[in-house]
């Protein structure tokens, strides 16, 4: 059986924030909120778990650093320790300052790019992906709150209209 969802549209982010708090207070589960721009504090009001993307970036940075160190230690020190302009290639530590720029750049490169790719994968974004927008106006100046209906259509409709919704639609999902 296809489930039904209720779509409440708002035109102001302040009104939306109050509506979210009210809906949470009434213990309804908010499926999704579509906004044209980031609304400060919305994630907290919805009770979303904090992101862990910074932790992944730190780990990716550590990986980048290890790649840089392993690569240059093998190439410059172990595989062919040439005398290039009198630089000491007897051990990694002795020639460390020359390697630092690369170590730094690879750390940043890995941290940045892998974090972005992680973000795309976790938020399921890619080229040619079909847009999941329930209402075109949410990319311009409307905010849309989506709540699933469990035989409580009238109650939800009443609650949402009290929160200042400018339009309430029911649709099949």
């Amino acid at each position, binding site marked *: 059986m296809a489930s039904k969802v209720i779509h409440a549209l708002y035109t102001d982010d302040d009104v939306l924030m109050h509506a979210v708090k009210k809906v949470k207070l009434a213990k309804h589960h908010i499926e999704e909120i579509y906004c044209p721009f980031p609304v400060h504090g919305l994630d907290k009001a919805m009770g979303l778990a904090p992101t862990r993307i*910074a932790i992944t970036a*730190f780990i990716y940075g550590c990986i980048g650093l290890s790649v840089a160190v392993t690569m240059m230690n093998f190439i410059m020190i172990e595989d062919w320790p040439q005398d290039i302009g*009198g630089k000491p290639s007897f051990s990694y530590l002795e020639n460390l*300052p*020359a390697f*630092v720029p690369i170590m730094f750049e690879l750390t940043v490169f890995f941290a940045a790019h892998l974090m972005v790719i992680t973000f795309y994968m976790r938020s399921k974004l890619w080229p040619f992906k079909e847009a999941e927008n329930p209402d075109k106006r949410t990319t311009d100046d409307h905010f849309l709150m989506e709540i699933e209906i469990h035989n409580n259509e009238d109650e939800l409709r009443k609650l949402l209209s009290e929160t200042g919704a400018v339009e309430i639609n029911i649709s099949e999902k």
Partner: protein
Amino acid sequence: MYTVSNRLKIASIILMVIGAIGIGIGFVSMPGSVQEAKAMVASHDDGHGGGHPEEAVHPAKASDSHHEASEAHGEAHDSSHDEHLLHQLQNRPWAALYVAAFFFFMIALGVLAFNAIQRAAQAGWSPLLFRVMEGITSYLVPGGIIVFIILALSVAHMNHLFVWMDADVVAHDALLQGKSGYLNGPFFLIRAAIFLGGWILYREYSRKLSLAQDESDDDTNFKKNFRASAGFLVFYLVTESMMSWDWIMSVDPHWFSTLFGWYIFASMFVSGITVIALITIYLKSKGLLEDVNDSHIHDLAKFMFGISIFWTYLWFSQFMLIWYSNIPEEVTYYITRIADFKLPFFGMIAMNFLFPVLLLMNSDYKRLNWFVVMAGVVILAGHYLDIFNAIMPSTVGDQWFIGIPEIGSVLFFAGLFIFWVFRALSKAPLQPKRNPFIEESKHFHY
């Protein structure tokens, strides 16, 4: 209004007394003659390189016909070496005093720059902390005067901190003669007086306007302060750079580096911000800064984190360029440091970079007061070592040690700093009243 607690006052006085005793011991135990100096080194000669290999090599190299001549040369070398040793040992209490005096002075100067930047940038988060910053910058006056006196005593030949002040040395040194147009006693003191005069003038003027703004009924004082701060920053940028050449780089007058001024700036800036954070946390723990919240501490900790990295960037840029090109006339600076100061030189990188970076990277940790205090103490100790590494190798060389004169000087100036700063904090309400950004600052939330 804040009143200094008796315990704090007594603690600062105790620090000053103990420190003064330590400084006194340093000066009393300073060797007066070459014989004393040799005896001092002989009594603990195990750590510092032992005997002198050149002396052993000299006779072996000399041929028989030149034997007498080479022996005479050996003796001349020996006595000049002894004199050098004597000067190094005599420099030690002076250098210890100078490093500590400059370190605490530079904290106040770093806070002054931070304060001016906050005002010129019209920052919305920091006005709640203006009185704390003004309290710290009050140390500019006594700290600056003490540094100036030490510099004046050097010019008066009371010590050998600055080798270019020694007329005998300059007479035999073409490089120093070439620089004597800039590096000469009177001009040196005039420059120092101009730097200190300008900084203190801005500090007093800005403080006056800041207090007047509380009582006035329009924003003219605020606007004047904005303009003064912007003007001061231009003056500061130029004078800070020259100050670092004069007061620090010139202890090693054969060596020069172009980014040195920035490097010293980064050191004083991060120390200053750390002290703002520490004093804010202290006052808040006493319930005196009620409107200061976690987010203010978080912002200060972000500055500590960021400027620590900035310092490391400059330190490394200076080190790596010189290490890479390895030009003999400039690389000696690092050769002496790595040879004789290995632990403080590399230990400082761990304390000023690795420690704050790993500790203050997490956003939640930056809101924990004890975390910020812990990182702050390490950062301050690290930047003391930074100034130590800048001054000591060219003044005391391999005779360095962190002993009674060094710790005594730090304690003395720490006591004076605490005494003076908290006395200034008790002179005005801790929260500005009519700053146009004070409401924003009270509700600052990150």
